């Protein structure tokens, strides 16, 4: 397991630093992601959710920090561990939960599922189930931005999220080379939770300090503590600023822990008890909550109210998803091609043959 970078002592400074309201917002977001993910796990166990389901549990501070840094005009690409990002990008818990349930009211009408959350309106360009699938398209989107806009503080940039294990696939290296060579406005964020399924970073990567891989592509690489929401936010903001203003791609490595198995069905038996203990001890949700209470930003009652509200919000989402209609098999052909293509299959198989007979 990689050692964590403690970029700075954990502290919340309601006076000198962020306004109390901002900190409270962050806690609300963390609490929402936590509640959503716990419930997703439950719904999966109750067979309401098909396919595979990868949770952001343990990564909430990273999710909130990154989503606090990205602007509405920016584009977000992510892997399959995408629920929290979609929620904080502004997709309603109802539509995200319905997508997990595979219902027509989901963000993609149930076609994408848990791993492929996509919403053009909020510039969330997926959700990718194939490891590394998101990295070249994100790089292409950054090339498009470079063509379409001039650099500056108001320019848009791309944020491309990926896991530690994903840095070993060819697409990662091909893309970073392009971005470095062409000076593209993109920030690649490695969410390093120490594990790719059951394989540790040390067992998978010749250079386990993953941010150092940036050197090969002449881009800045840096590592930040993923349990520290403010540190993540600030590092990501700086990186995005370089992308916007100087067309300088950046590789940002965010160190966190995966609280549970790789996906809901993984009991994670490969994990050592010590590692599980560390993961639990560094759980960012209770620690941020305790810090906010200690520093007077929240009272215990406030924090409890926030947690309860998050839970209630998720309950509404589940009810909505449960009550939404299932997809109609006849619609499966509706979005295969952009325009009607002569002679392309457009009906369930068997029927044309029956007519011919």
């Amino acid at each position, binding site marked *: 397991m990689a050692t964590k970078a403690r970029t700075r002592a954990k502290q919340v400074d309601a006076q000198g630093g962020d306004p109390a309201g901002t900190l409270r917002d962050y806690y609300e977001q963390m609490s929402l992601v936590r509640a959503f993910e716990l419930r997703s796990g439950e719904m999966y166990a109750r067979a309401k959710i*098909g*396919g*595979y389901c990868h949770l952001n549990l343990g990564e909430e501070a990273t999710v909130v920090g990154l989503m606090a840094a990205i602007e509405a005009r920016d584009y977000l690409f992510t892997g399959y561990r995408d629920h929290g990002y979609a929620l904080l990008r502004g997709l309603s818990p109802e539509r995200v939960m319905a997508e997990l349930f*595979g*219902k027509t009211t989901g963000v993609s009408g*149930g*076609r994408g*599922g848990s*791993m*492929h959350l996509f919403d053009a309106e909020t510039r969330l360009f997926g959700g990718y*189930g*194939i*490891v*590394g699938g998101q990295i070249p398209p994100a790089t292409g989107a950054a090339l498009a931005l470079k063509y379409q806009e001039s650099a500056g503080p108001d320019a848009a940039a791309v944020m491309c999220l990926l896991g530690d*294990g*994903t840095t*070993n*696939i*060819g*697409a990662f290296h091909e893309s970073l080379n392009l971005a470095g060579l062409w000076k593209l406005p993109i920030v690649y964020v490695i969410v390093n939770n120490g594990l*790719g*399924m*059951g*394989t540790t970073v040390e*067992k*998978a*990567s010749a250079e386990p300090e993953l941010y150092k891989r940036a050197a090969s592509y002449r881009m800045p690489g840096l590592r930040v503590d993923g349990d520290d929401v403010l540190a993540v936010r600030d590092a990501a903001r700086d990186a995005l600023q370089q992308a916007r203003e100087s067309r300088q791609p950046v590789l940002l490595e965010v160190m966190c822990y995966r609280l549970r198995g790789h996906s809901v069905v993984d009991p994670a*038996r*490969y994990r050592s008890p010590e590692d599980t203990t560390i993961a639990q001890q560094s759980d960012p949700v209770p620690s941020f909550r305790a810090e906010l209470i200690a520093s007077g930003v929240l009272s215990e009652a406030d924090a409890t109210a926030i947690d309860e509200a998050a839970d209630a919000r998720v309950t509404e989402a589940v009810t909505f998803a449960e009550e939404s209609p*299932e*997809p*109609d*098999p006849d619609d*499966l*052909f509706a979005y*295969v091609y952009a325009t009607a293509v002569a002679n*392309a*299959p457009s009906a*369930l*198989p*068997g029927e044309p*043959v*029956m007519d011919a*007979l």
Partner: protein
Amino acid sequence: MTAATDTSVASASLPMTKALNAGLRRAMLDDPSVLLMGEDIGSLGGVFRVTEGLIAEFGDKRVLDTPLAESGIIGTAIGLAMRGFRPVCEIQFDGFVFPGFDQITSQLARMRNRHEGGLIMPVVIRIPYGGHIGSIEHHQESPEAYFAHTPGLRVVSPSNPHDAYWMMQEAITSNDPVIFFEPKSRYWPKGEVRFDESGTPLHASRVVRAGTDVTVVGHGAMVSVLSQAADLAQAEGISLEVIDLRSISPIDYAPILGSVQKTGRLVVTQEAPGFVSVGSEIAATVAERAFYTLEAPVLRVSGFDTPFPPAAVETHFLPSPDRVLEAVDRVLAY
């Protein structure tokens, strides 16, 4: 961890995962040049636990946990094969083979021909494939046609634990690359595995249920769907002859043509989309070679020509006994 399966007995009732495990283990015991490579296949034993226990028995030089890099895994296997090893690569799920597709189709498949027979390529690529487990795209697909289309590759798929045990060993002793498709929905049901002899060579297809009215052909998980269809048909007085293809490339046509001589009617089935598919190939060949014995056009029952659908509607996408029987009715009515 579970103990290794005892293969010194006459037979055992095993799920396909265990039969594959026993086949891999047998091959590793028989030949020290056999080694396994893949993501999380060591201490985790693979996502489906097919390689469970093998790293403990054979060590981490023969059971290699690799980084996440399909192109690297398959390309490395090619190099190992050039120097006399017999690598068996695990791809976690059907949809994850494509980062390695270039190494398979551009290199692995052509190496022997390119070097005028100067080397052999004994590489097995194991791919859990197919649907029925509610797992949406990338995790339930049937990409066998891409590989069957590529000269130089052998492509097989067992439908039951006995065949899985034997076909795995034969694939590993093959001096050509074998793409070994494991029907993941058949991983868990138990079946009898006889350890004395296979009974059927790797590339033979086989009549698994005799019948007289309509021949139905399929591979992998389709074989059990066809057996269910045959039971239902029997209740209606229709007799289906069920053929398990087993080998997708090359295809053993003798049992198929022999059966069609008898029935005059053929329905070919597959989970993959029907367009340019293995079923299309069989239909075309039977039309070429048995035109005068056919009493009806050959019909295909396939997945839809769409990306793999959401879990809730996958039962429509995947051919069911009912869809097979509709096609049976049509060829009978013709």
